[in-house]
């Protein structure tokens, strides 16, 4: 019988903590890249059970599903591992494109009072609470890699990064925390 390949998570279980902040690898998750015109949003929101945010830099969390605004017609959906986004959208007739990217990304959790400072070591965005409140999200840069940043709480961020960049992003944040930037 043929052996089936098993998918190995990237840098699973890695964690670093020092001083005011910590970085750890989040457990595997289901992710969906969703593109749709504004006329389709209502039907898609209904099928997904979570309202797609239409304001820039905002996200909506319902239960353990996050819907992140990435662009005027682009959203990133994040749910627990195995969550069937594609199945939920299978019968939607409204025009849209949905691509499963569960395994394209890895996620890092950056937590602690120094979390924003650690991210700002490489991320040029203003992470002050007034400019980037809890629930805010944005595609941006961190060091040399593109990330999607989601602020879960004042001192907790989720960093979505492409899988092959995950070791770089982890090392970058580890270094920033080590130096307490």
């Amino acid at each position, binding site marked *: 019988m043929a052996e089936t390949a098993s998918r190995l998570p990237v840098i699973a279980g890695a964690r670093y903590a020092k001083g005011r902040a910590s970085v750890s690898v989040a457990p595997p998750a289901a992710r969906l890249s969703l593109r749709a015109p504004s006329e389709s949003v209502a039907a898609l929101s209904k099928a997904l059970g979570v309202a797609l945010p239409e304001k*820039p830099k905002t996200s909506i969390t319902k239960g353990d599903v996050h819907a992140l605004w*990435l*662009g005027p017609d*682009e959203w990133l959906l994040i749910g627990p591992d195995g969550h069937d986004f594609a199945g939920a959208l299978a019968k939607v007739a409204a025009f849209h494109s949905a691509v499963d990217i569960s395994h394209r990304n890895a996620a890092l959790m950056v937590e602690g009072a120094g979390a924003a400072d650690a991210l700002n070591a490489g991320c*040029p965005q203003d992470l002050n609470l007034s400019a980037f409140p809890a629930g805010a999200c944005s595609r*941006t*840069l961190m060091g040399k890699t593109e990330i999607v940043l989601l602020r879960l709480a004042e001192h907790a961020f989720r960093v979505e990064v492409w899988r092959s960049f995950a070791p770089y992003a982890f090392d970058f944040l580890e270094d920033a925390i080590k130096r307490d930037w």
Partner: protein
Amino acid sequence: MLLIHCPYCGEERPEVEFRQSGEAHIARPQNMADITDEEFEAFFFLRDNPKGVTFERWRHVHGCARFFNAARDTVTDKILMTYKAGLPKPDITLPEKTLALTVDPGVSGRSLLPGDAK
């Protein structure tokens, strides 16, 4: 760091999230198969290189990923305004003070210093 206003995100974002993508408002000929080589050259290769206000396409590549247009002063590198793609070219009148910067005084604009060639 330069801050650029993204018309789709509705706020100023750091320059490193953006890419410049060449001159804006270049209309692609509808009759591409019929035009002469010279006309194609003019459409495809020839670009203005003005001193002063230029209209450029920019892309918020590490953000919302949208293309938009910007009016930029090539002398001061100041982005005068940004607007959504598809909107007509705005009429930009530079304030007097900025205009003065775009006028090249040349050598004659200053008095000769000792050692200058006469």
